[in-house]
């Protein structure tokens, strides 16, 4: 009897306590925020216990305590699966959420509904943990929908702004399209394997698992913003920066990837689906990296960077390396959250200015944020021995030395160099040269509530890769040998990107601002994808339905064909054939007089 199960259940329960406290008077006080933050910190510490036990003894647990319902032969119960993935993800997610909550005490300080904000963040965290620890698909779906709902509420936090409402609705719609695939897979599992439990699904080795995996792929694409279902992620930057840092960089958008990782026993035997995932991921990573090159809003650049990294994770899953993808999820969470927190610090200090063309020269003014931003960007591009190196470099190595689709590989490599380019763009436009913002700004970063989270995530960005990859038990055989030029591929592409970016930066600094070329327009307008797809299909569908349903069926077939035609024909015919004038009383009187005269004359004339 050890502490494993108790710690897990205590962690999950502890996080629900502030929500239960929200109905009391404590909710209205100022201490609620610190209470929530402290609860997350304690949950993080307690969740380290099972993780350490897992690292030490490889102990996995399945907690199945409450039998909810049995419908015919389907038994649904509340069950938590604590295996490699969920045990490693929980401390990471809790650590990052703790840092973000501390940051948002500073960021959302002037908001009157700040307690509600914290409650929403907490509900989001709980649903994300439900998603990751779920053992059956029903519970996973509960977590899935939960994070979708909380994303809607948090993106539309400033709901007086119509752009925020549109973005929140867009997020829900795109997630819903993916949910169709999820429901398809659930139905297939129910009808073919009679279960929604992951254990039974992995045990029953079916011949063709094409259909459920084809269903899970759009679900992952919708949640993780792959190409075709991606526009919601840059639009989701309408939410406050802590929301972007938590949901749309570390936790929610990896839910889709996490789903595919969970199903790796099914995926490793299914080559076509792997190829599909690989192609989708490669396309996503290149397309979003291209879109990130010319964006002008700092949060959108980081959002596209997230999308590009998600494409990279999809590529890894397509290479049949789910554990590498998971490692990339964990390490990516650190530096991406830190990048968002740094951008939040910059935005708040420049009085809510988000356009990088109006920032500059922050190198000397905000030294700590500068440090964190540069470290984050370097970790993102895969600088050797920072965090990103341990996962990203391994992914590129696995890609270059596996028997895979050369096109997908090429796209991934190009996207790697583009990563370096847009990172350089962020750094040079926000931090270097002369300031381009109005001079009377009170800029300081002395508040410990701002500095401590960034400091923690900075240490995480530097060391977490090392710590995680040394403590994670290897589940697959790592790649041992490869030619030198393949080993150096990622590094070469990154350095190439940096050199290119610096060159372009220096020789276009002093020239007249050019009119944007066609390529720039393509990149800034996100490849025209939202412009086309948000207007054309709805217009076509609505026009078609108006023509078919209203005009054809309602007005024509059931109204105009028989009733109105008959009435019309009758009217015309009667007008044509009659020449009466409607003098009814005259006609009746004449009839009466005629009848009377006839009767009288026949009576008296025999």
């Amino acid at each position: 009897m050890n502490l494993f199960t108790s710690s897990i259940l205590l962690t999950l329960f502890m996080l629900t306590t502030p929500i239960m406290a929200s109905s009391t008077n404590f909710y209205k006080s100022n201490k609620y925020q610190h209470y929530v933050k402290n609860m997350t910190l304690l949950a993080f510490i307690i969740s380290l216990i099972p993780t350490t036990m897992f690292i030490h003894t490889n102990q996995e647990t399945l907690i199945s305590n409450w039998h909810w319902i049995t419908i015919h032969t389907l038994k649904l119960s509340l069950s938590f699966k604590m295996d490699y993935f969920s045990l490693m993800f929980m401390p990471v997610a809790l650590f990052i959420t703790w840092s973000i909550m501390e940051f948002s005490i500073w960021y959302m300080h002037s908001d009157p509904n700040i307690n509600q904000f914290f409650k929403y963040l907490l509900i989001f965290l709980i649903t994300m943990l439900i998603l990751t620890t779920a053992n059956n698909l029903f519970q996973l779906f509960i977590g899935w929908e939960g994070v979708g709902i909380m994303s809607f509420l948090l993106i539309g936090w400033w709901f007086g702004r119509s752009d925020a409402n549109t973005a929140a609705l867009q997020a829900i719609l795109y997630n819903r399209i993916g949910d169709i695939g999820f429901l398809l897979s659930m139905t297939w599992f129910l009808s073919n394997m009679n279960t929604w439990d992951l254990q039974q699904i992995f045990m029953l080795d079916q011949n063709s698992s094409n259909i459920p995996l084809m269903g899970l792929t759009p679900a992952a694409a919708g949640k993780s913003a792959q190409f075709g279902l991606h526009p919601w992620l840059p639009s989701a930057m309408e939410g406050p920066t802590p929301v972007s840092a938590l949901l749309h960089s570390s936790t929610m958008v990896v839910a889709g990837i996490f789903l595919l990782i969970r199903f790796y026993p099914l995926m490793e035997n299914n080559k076509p689906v792997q190829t599909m995932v690989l192609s989708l991921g490669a396309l996503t990573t290149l397309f979003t990296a291209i879109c990130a090159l010319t964006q002008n809003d700092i949060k959108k650049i980081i959002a596209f960077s997230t999308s590009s990294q998600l494409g990279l994770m999809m590529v890894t899953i397509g290479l049949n390396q789910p554990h590498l993808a998971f490692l990339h999820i964990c390490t990516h969470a650190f530096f991406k959250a830190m990048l968002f927190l740094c951008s939040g610090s910059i935005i708040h200090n420049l009085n809510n200015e988000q356009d990088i063309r109006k920032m500059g020269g922050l190198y000397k003014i905000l030294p700590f944020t500068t440090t964190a931003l540069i470290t984050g960007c370097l970790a993102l591009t895969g600088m050797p021995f920072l965090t990103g190196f341990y996962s990203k470099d391994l992914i590129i190595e696995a890609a270059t030395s596996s028997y895979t689709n050369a096109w997908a590989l090429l796209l991934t490599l190009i996207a790697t160099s583009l990563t370096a380019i847009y990172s350089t763009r962020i750094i040079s436009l926000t931090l270097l040269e002369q300031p381009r913002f109005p001079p009377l700004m009170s800029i300081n970063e002395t508040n410990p509530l701002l500095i401590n989270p960034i400091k923690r995530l900075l240490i995480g960005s530097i060391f977490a890769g090392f710590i995680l990859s040394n403590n994670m038990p290897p589940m697959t055989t790592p790649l041992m040998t490869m030619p030198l030029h393949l080993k150096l591929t990622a590094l070469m592409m990154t350095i190439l990107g940096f050199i290119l970016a610096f060159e372009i930066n220096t020789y276009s600094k002093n020239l007249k601002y050019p009119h944007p070329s066609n390529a720039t327009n393509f990149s800034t307008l996100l490849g025209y994808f939202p412009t086309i797809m948000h207007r054309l299909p709805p217009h076509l569908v609505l026009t078609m339905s108006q023509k078919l349903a209203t005009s054809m069926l309602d007005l024509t077939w059931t109204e105009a064909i028989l009733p109105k035609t008959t009435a019309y024909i009758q009217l015309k015919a009667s007008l044509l054939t009659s020449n009466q004038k409607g003098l009814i009383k005259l006609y009746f009187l004449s009839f009466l007089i005629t009848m009377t005269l006839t009767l009288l004359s026949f009576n008296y004339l025999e």
Partner: protein
Amino acid sequence: VSLIHINILIAFTISLTGLLIYRSHLISALLCLEGITLSLFILAALTILNSHFTLASMIPIILLVFAAREAAIGLALLVIISNTYGTDYVQNFNLLQC
């Protein structure tokens, strides 16, 4: 021949006269139409029952069915007229011509 027959025939004649001479409302004509059909029905029923002509005893029933249909159509016309004119005064009938 008998007094009852004459009674009913007089009722018929009065209703007929009322149908052909009416002052202002269309509904009075419809009412007289009902009277006509009613008197015809009673005449037919009495004659057939009196002469025990059982074979023809469905004639009053059929007559009743047709009378009901006729009344329904008359009321439908009344409703349409009332929709377009607001009243059923006969002096309006030749106002709107098409």
